[in-house]
């Protein structure tokens, strides 16, 4: 009898043990180690030469101009990507929602970029955006518009990267929104039609609230994802020109060989920012989300 009760108490822990082992080993321990490293001037190859410097790394981060540049770049990138992707995929999804054969083809086409490796995508776009012999400038010139410098000028580089990310993301999120739209019961629309509601009213009062859980999910996933952007930056601009596209993760990456302590401290700061964002989202936005 007693034995059974002990087992009952212990059982849940035993059951989550395998998953927890993984989480502790590959998530919690590395995070703890990262925090530890952030207090050192760390010498990876010769531990005797590492020096505990307290919070010096953090002081340095917050007194360096390039950190704020990187932070600002990341915020600009995130807002750009999240807003553009969300608005565009919502529009496309509403359009695709009418079940037609043609729409299925369009949907497949829009989804394709998502399954292509980001490396190939970035390389092809680099070629398209080449200012002298790239296709985009050629098109602009054919229509009598001035060409852009795209990636090679610090004022246009960020928007160029945002365009590529949006182009790659849009299909995936359209798919999620289309699925959400189709799960709305038609009876609600019929009731609205009987009440002579205008199209805009229907969209604002019925469609948006009913797909808000999915939109909320997209918002969180995309914000976190965009905050961690690295691959497009690494391939297309290397953080330049003149730091115009250096995002936080790329900033950390730049310090990987010679200032591991400083890079770790920046990593901790990034983690804190993302945690904060997530908490704020859940606190503020979750009240506006309508769960059926």
């Amino acid at each position, binding site marked *: 009898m007693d034995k059974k009760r002990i087992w009952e108490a212990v059982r849940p822990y035993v059951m989550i043990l395998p998953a927890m082992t993984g989480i502790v080993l590959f998530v919690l321990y590395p995070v703890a180690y990262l925090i530890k490293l952030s207090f050192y*001037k760390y010498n990876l190859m010769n531990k005797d030469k590492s020096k505990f410097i307290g919070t010096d790394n953090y002081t340095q981060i917050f007194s360096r101009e*390039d950190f704020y540049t990187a932070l600002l770049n990341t915020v600009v990138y995130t807002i750009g990507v999240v807003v553009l992707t969300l608005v565009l995929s919502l529009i496309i999804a509403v359009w695709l929602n009418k079940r037609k054969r043609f729409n299925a083809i369009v949907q497949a086409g829009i989804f394709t970029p998502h399954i292509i490796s980001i490396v190939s995508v970035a390389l092809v776009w680099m070629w398209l955006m080449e200012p002298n012999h790239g296709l985009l400038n050629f098109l602009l010139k054919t229509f009598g518009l001035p060409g852009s410098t795209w990636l090679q000028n610090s004022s246009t580089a960020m928007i160029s990267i945002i365009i590529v990310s949006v182009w790659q993301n849009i299909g995936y999120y359209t798919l999620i929104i289309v699925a959400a739209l189709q799960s709305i019961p038609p009876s609600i629309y019929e009731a609205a039609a009987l009440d002579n509601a205008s199209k805009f009213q229907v969209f604002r009062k019925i469609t948006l609230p009913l797909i808000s859980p999915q939109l909320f999910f997209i918002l969180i996933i995309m914000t976190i994802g965009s905050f961690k952007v690295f691959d497009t930056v690494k391939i*297309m601009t290397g953080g330049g020109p*003149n730091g115009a596209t250096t995002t936080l993760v790329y900033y950390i990456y730049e310090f990987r060989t010679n*200032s591991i302590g400083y890079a770790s401290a920046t990593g901790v700061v990034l983690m804190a920012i993302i945690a904060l964002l997530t908490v704020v989202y859940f606190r503020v936005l979750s009240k506006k989300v309508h769960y059926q």
Partner: protein
Amino acid sequence: MWKKASSVLLATTMLSGLLAACSGGESPKTTDTGSSAAPAPSGPAGKATVQFWHSLGGKNGEYLDAMIKRFNASQDKVEVVGTFQGSYDETVTKLQQAVAAKTGPDISMLERAYIQMFADSDVLEDMTPFLKKSNMSQDDLTPGLMGHSVFDKKLVSLPFNRSTPILHVNKTMLDEKGLAVPKTWEELKTVANALVIKENNEFKRYGYSMPYDTWYPIAMISQAKGKFFNDQGTSIGFDSALGTKVFKFLKDQQNTGALYYPPQQDSGNIVNQMFISGKIGLMYQSTGVIGSLKDNVKFDYVTSFLPMDAVYATPTGGANLSLMAGSKNKDAAWEFLRWAMIDPQGGLQFILDSGYLPFTKKMVESQQIKDLWAKEPNRKVAYDQLQYAVDTNKHVAWPQVMQEFFKAIQAIMYDNKAIEPTLDTFKKEAERLLKG
């Protein structure tokens, strides 16, 4: 469930056994040495295995592999295993981690600028005693290439695949305009501006170009008689007037089209391509591209010293070889290094194949190099320029300072930021890094 798992496990074991048997059958030679298992560092019957990490891919990688093969065939005590680890930077990252995990190689190729950083962590072996044992001395090596070899009076690396920047010239284009190869900055300015072709507000042809790198501005700083770091290693060694002069020189010409400054990504390939297709007449670029340019250009192609301002000067580049302090096979590894330096089949053949600079005095005097230079005077120019070689960017903190210098270059060359304040910011950042 368990049954299924165990049967899968069993099948896997059997399969791998089968595979092992197959591979054993395919290569009977390896079983001769009596080590069918993983090669032990040094078995009594087997050879001592030396791990050698390098960063040479493509054609140069093949030349290096051939050299390793020649070494392995030349004797039966040491077996060198060469592994390509990616670019110089990637090799550095991997090596740092491997050293920390104590799984590092015995010998590694290190881009010269990173050597100080490794030496400062005490992970590179002092090779002086080995050199003495083999009756050699540092004087046997090419002096212009020794800039990064000695740290705290210890010989921590030997030059191997070394290069310098030189001026590559499209002689045909210059001759059409009746221009001579520029020898000074002023001449460069005149020649480059004369080469510019502008149509409808678009440049069809520029004067000259250079890859996006710290190498070329540093070369110009030393040509103007400045030093990158001061002698105490506490700050940068050129004043604001000198820095402004260098960058203003570049900037003025960029504005007239005399200089095309390429985008950051893939800049080396971009300028090479422009040179080959005649979009620029002159190019600052490494000696490492002489071989491929020679094969690809359809015009009279010559090389020349980098133009001088107050003096001729050039930094050096490329990589050195280092013996790792964590190696368990130092004698065997040294044997390979020694062979590479003195045997005609070693480094000399590699230099002849690849076009890097000869790194011992014996090589320079050898008949093979003399023949090569007689046939290809372009290569000799690079060696001759070594008499003006000066590396003033030596410091443990160089990799960090380099990042800041890159930022300054970007701000000036891409964003038209005012030169003086940018260099002042750079100086401040550099001093902070040099202090730490």
